Structures are given as C-alpha cells and as structure tokens.
C-alpha cells in the first residue's frame, strides 16, 4: 500500500467512524430508540386539561410503553384539548371502552397517557375516539382545595 492510498483509507475510516458515532447517538441515546416497530395507528382522546403533557410523551398500558403522543391541539368549538395518540400496530387488541388518563411518573416526573383497558368485545381502530378520559391532576388545585376547605370535619358542621 503506497502512502497516498494509506492516508486515503485512514480518512475514509475516520469519516465512517464519525458517521457511525452519529448513528449511534441518534438511534441509541434519543427518543428514536423507543419508536422501533414501524407501523402505528392513531386514536383520538379529548381532555379538559392535559397539564404538562408534551408531544412524544409515552402512552402506556399497565406501565408498558405502547406508543406516543402525536399531537396536542385545542379544539375551537368545544374548547378542550384534542390529543392524538399514535399506538404501535402490534397492540391492536385494546377494547373501545378503554379509558385514557394523564398521569405523572413519580411525584415530579414527566407526564404520560395511561390507558386502562375496558371490557368491550370491539377493539379500537385507526381514527377512533376514546370516550372515557381523565384529565391531569393539578397539584396546585389540590393544594388550593386543601387550603380553602381546611380540615374536613370543621366544614361539615
């Protein structure tokens, strides 16, 4: 191998290594690592309050991730939040009367959508809407109620 060929090969190796590192960073250390499995179907759900829910937040059943939040928009007529969930095709056995709730992982963690399965024999299909939803619990509201009401037995008299 003459010197010219060897430095060209070394440069090629360097470029390959750089791109391999980029591919590693992009696929293994980011949210892309959670979106394997390709095909997905979308389900809509309305919430009166989504709290701190963000796009790409996980959707879970029994704590297992099955998809992610695709978009969060305000519906102009009803003035509630329309959340589009993208669920992996693999999990297509979700009863249509299942309920969706905005939960928080841990006390101060990120928010996610938890789906609790219902008992209907009919399954959710692409574009369906989930009727039963439970909005995010606002910590501030809880504290506010507690402060206003004080201790419950004083109020009941």
């Amino acid at each position: 191998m003459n010197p010219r060929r060897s430095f060209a090969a070394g440069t090629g190796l360097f470029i390959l290594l750089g791109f391999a590192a980029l591919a590693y960073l992009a696929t293994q250390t980011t949210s892309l690592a959670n979106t394997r499995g390709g095909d997905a179907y979308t389900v809509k759900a309305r919430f009166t309050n989504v709290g701190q829910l963000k796009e790409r937040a996980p959707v879970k059943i029994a704590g297992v991730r099955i998809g992610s939040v695709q978009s969060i928009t305000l519906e102009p007529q009803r003035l509630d939040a329309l959340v589009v969930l993208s669920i992996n095709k693999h999990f297509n056995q979700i009863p249509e009367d299942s309920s969706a709730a905005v939960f928080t992982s841990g006390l101060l963690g990120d928010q996610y959508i938890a789906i609790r399965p219902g008992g209907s024999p009919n399954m959710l299909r692409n574009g369906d809407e989930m009727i039963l939803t439970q909005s995010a619990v606002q910590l501030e509201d809880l504290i506010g109620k507690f402060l206003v009401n004080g201790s419950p037995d004083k109020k009941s008299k």
Partner: protein
Amino acid sequence: MNARSRRPNWFMDGLAQVGDAGLFLPTLLAAIPRSLRHFRETVRQLWFVGAMSLTIIMVCGLFVGMVLALQLYYVLSIFGATTTTGTVVALATFRELGPVVTALLFAGRAGTSITAEIGLMRATDQLSAMEMMAVDPIAYVATPRFLAGVVAMPLLCCVFCAMAIFGGHLVGVTWLGIDNGTFWSNMTASVHVWSDIIDGVIYKSLAFGAVVTLIAVHQGYTTPPTSEGVAYATTRTVVASSIAILALDFVMTAFLT
C-alpha cells in the same frame, strides 16, 4: 502618554483583524470550485486535521463523560435522583460540552498546525512561488484546509459525544451501580434527535469548525513573514478561536433553544 496613544491602536488592530478575517471568508468560499481540482489535497488535510485528532478527542471525551457522571452522581444523590445521571450526562454533552470542548481541542490540535504550516509557507515565500507557477495558493493551500476543518469538526464531535456517553456509562453503571436499563431508558426518554443531536451537536460543531479553521487559515495567510510573526500568529489563533467559540456558543444556544 505612550500608553494612551497605544490603546486605540490595540483596539483598532483587533477590529481590523476581525474585519480582515470576515473579508477573507468570501475569498475562501469563492475558491471552492477551483479547489475541487485539488480534491486529493482536501482529503489529505481531512486526514491530517480530522483523523489525526481522533486520539485526543476520544481520550478527552471519555474522561469528560466519566467526570460528569461522577460529579452528577454525588449531586443527584442528595435529591435521590441518581437514575437521571445518564440523562444529564447526555444532555450536557450534546448541548454544550461536546461541541465546545471538541472545538477548543480542535483549535489547539489542528488550528495551530494549520496556522504554523501556512505561516511558514508565507515566511519562506512558498506562497509567492506558487503564484509565480500560476497555482492559486488560496485554492491549493487555504480552501482545502478550510473545507477539511468544516467536515472534520462534526464528525469529531460525534465521536467525542459517543465516547462521553460511554464514559458516563462506565462510571455510572459499572462503577457506581446505577441500573443499566434505567440509565438508558431515562436517557432515551428525555433526549430528542432534532433539538439535541441535530441542533446541539451538528449545527454547533459545523459553525465552530468553520470559525476555527477560518481564523487559523487567515492568521497563517496574513502572518508577518518572520519566525516571530509565525509564533504570534499561532498564539493568536488559539486565543481568538477560544474566544470566538465560547461567544458563538452563547449566541447559538440563545437562538437554537
């Protein structure tokens, strides 16, 4: 009296350097089509500024990741949040430390050698000799080094970040005993491809690569043709590059996030 009269000169000199470097950039860019004829030279420079810098970049990346994990573990253990060590290591590296430290190392390792090499070519009249042989020194000497720097920086930065994650994993998981699955799942849950990898790693390192090599090539090209002049030009490359990197980093962070 003497000090007072020198001060504006010092300031005006600095300003003139910045302006001159800014005017040098279009010259460099305009020479890109002509420098494609010397494509082999660009590859050779890519080997020299990129591949030869790999060792220092990889070792430094490993240690930066290790020390980050070590420090964060002790701080986060106060809040009982040691499982987020991987997340913070990844975000800190991708958004700030990776591009900035890589660029500073790159300025020290590659920028200085570019300045010294071109400066010596100037001092020994090789650039004039090229002009006499109808070889455009901008297209043959300056632009290939500039292009090589712009291409090499993002690649080096990716390698640096990957090594930092590896170092963080080594200390966090292997040494301090954070659970392996939690380490990765927390990291993947809060790092995003576009806002962290593309905006942080790629855009920043492209800009830093362009700035560092522009300063290095310009300093070498305009150096006074004496050995003292080359020495000053090399020093100025490191100083100006470091300031430019850190200032530009603040501006880019403010705009990108």
